[in-house]
């Protein structure tokens, strides 16, 4: 009876994991396949698709744009998130719940609504669409995530640590710099990474607000119209997969090292 239940559970886990990761594993397999048709059986090994990527100038600029937008978005939304999360966790003020709720709304707002409305506003004000308009849209949707992550960090921070610093003669600002910021740093890094990743693969807003220059997801989407280029899209996907794995692992490494240094108990985290 017991054995039976375990084996059903094991089967469920296998199917679940297969469903989740098998399509992703196809990406690297076909990106090294020597055929422009994405189908089994595999016809041979090649690095041509990667070489093709290396030579495509428009791809390079799309990657540069995406990374720049993601980096700026990550920094701006984390800074906004820091202010909002500190205010929410440390002060009582009028309409606090309402204000915090409004900050969180973009979390559930359809991106197409955000994209279209920002497009209308930007054009009405006579601004030109550029990479900056994409940054604007991305900050809007990334800030709620930063607020959530940083609020948790602030709430886990013992308030008397900040009071102790003030008691010992520091100002509010130097207390933030010397005590609060170092102790919530894991949260800050998490917020930066989350905002960076969301911005990096965001398509709808980037599609609506892009001017002459495009981001990586928009560029990939445009490639899909040419079936012959499909394997190079897979090669690009493989590179992105590897890059995000490296990012994830190093983020976790930094987080654990931070925990060890302050002797905090491990609560949550990714793995």
């Amino acid at each position, binding site marked *: 009876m017991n054995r039976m239940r375990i084996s059903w559970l094991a089967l469920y886990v296998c199917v679940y994991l297969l469903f989740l990761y098998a399509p992703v594993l196809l990406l690297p397999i076909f990106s090294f396949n020597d055929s422009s048709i994405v189908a089994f059986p595999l016809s041979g090994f090649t690095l041509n698709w990667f070489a093709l990527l290396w030579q495509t100038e428009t791809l390079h600029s799309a990657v540069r744009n995406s990374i720049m937008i993601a980096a700026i978005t990550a920094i701006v939304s984390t800074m906004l998130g820091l202010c909002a999360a500190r205010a929410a966790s440390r002060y009582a003020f009028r309409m606090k719940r309402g204000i915090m709720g409004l900050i969180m709304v973009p979390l559930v707002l359809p991106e197409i609504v955000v994209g279209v409305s920002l497009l209308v506003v930007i054009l009405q004000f006579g601004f030109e669409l550029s990479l900056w308009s994409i940054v604007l849209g991305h900050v809007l949707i990334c800030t709620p995530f930063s607020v959530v992550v940083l609020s948790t960090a602030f709430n886990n921070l*013992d308030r*008397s*640590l900040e*009071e*102790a*610093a*003030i*008691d*010992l*003669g*520091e*100002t509010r600002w130097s207390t933030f710099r010397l*005590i609060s910021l*170092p*102790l919530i740093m894991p949260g800050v890094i998490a917020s930066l990474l989350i905002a960076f990743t969301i911005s990096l693969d965001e398509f709808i807003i980037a599609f609506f607000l892009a001017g002459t220059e495009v981001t990586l997801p928009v560029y990939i989407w445009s490639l899909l119209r040419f079936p012959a280029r499909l394997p190079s899209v897979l090669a690009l996907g493989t590179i992105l997969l590897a890059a995000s794995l490296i990012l994830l692992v190093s983020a976790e490494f930094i987080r654990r090292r931070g925990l060890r*240094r*302050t*002797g*905090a108990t491990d609560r949550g985290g990714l793995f």
Partner: protein
Amino acid sequence: MNEMMIKLTSVTKSFGTVTALDGVTADIQAGEFFSLLGPSGCGKTTLLRTIAGFEEPDSGSIFIDGQPMRGVEANRRPTNMVFQSYAIFPHMSVAQNVGFGLRRRRLRPDELQRQIDDALRMVSLEGFGERAAHTLSGGQRQRVALARALIMRPKVLLLDEPLSALDKKLREQMQLELRQLQRAVGITFILVTHDQEEALTMSDRIAIMFEGQIAQLSTPQDLYMRPKSRQVADFIGSMNFLRAEILRRQADRIEVRIEGLGKVELAGDQASHNADDQPAAGVRPELLTILFDETDRAAREVEGEITGRSYFGDMTYYEARLDGASNAVTISMRNTSGRPVLDAGARIRVGWEADSIILL
């Protein structure tokens, strides 16, 4: 010694609809070990935080060493605090924690090091400077918190339930050490505690607080022997209450009849009851004596019956009913060799003295 350090005048503070401090007035002397004692929610921590500058009173005034404190932020006040959680900065070493408050004084590195070493020696943590703060035990954290506050040479050191997180043995040891430390540095200490034993052993004076007000402010002996209200009598130690009736009241003598004890004449300072209330006679359990031997004699004797007992090793606490009394009393007796432990139902003779009675 009798120089005034802190003057509190009608300090009032509310949080929303809750009144945390309701017109607190008190003078605290320089060099005094002063305790704020009370049950949780009585406002003692709020009062401490108001003195520290973390809360601004709604009305009333606070003077520290003659200076008005209204509008002066916590980082500009001549006070330092030992927090209940100790608030040791976990990302710093012990030395960085202890020297944190000196950062702004821009000392030479060797002078800074000397002061940190002195402070660590004062709390018996020599050689701990390079340890990471998060590796310390509870008792060590508390010493670091003390050193970190005392290195600032504050005029007043505020301690918010500093011993509540320690186990019993360590707590008793730290009580002694804190008291010695306070004598050595001569700084005014204000201790917040809900532990009456802690307050009694450590303090020069104690303010007992209930519901945002100081119920009584006095020395430990006076609070214990001459509580001014039943609430205070009940909170500090335990107190037996017996119904009493005032027979005759003269200038400084009061004649009362006490249920179970009989008629007695009390001095004026033994009575502090409100004239409107039904008076009660209070007597501490250790001031009633069971006369075990036929030959034992006491100035005043009454009879009664044991109704129950709790054995504590060094002491036995008897529940007894004195003949003619409607309430039971507790009598505590030290267990000496050869002294029997009585069972329920045993008849006893109880000795007592007139000056151990207070009328509330």
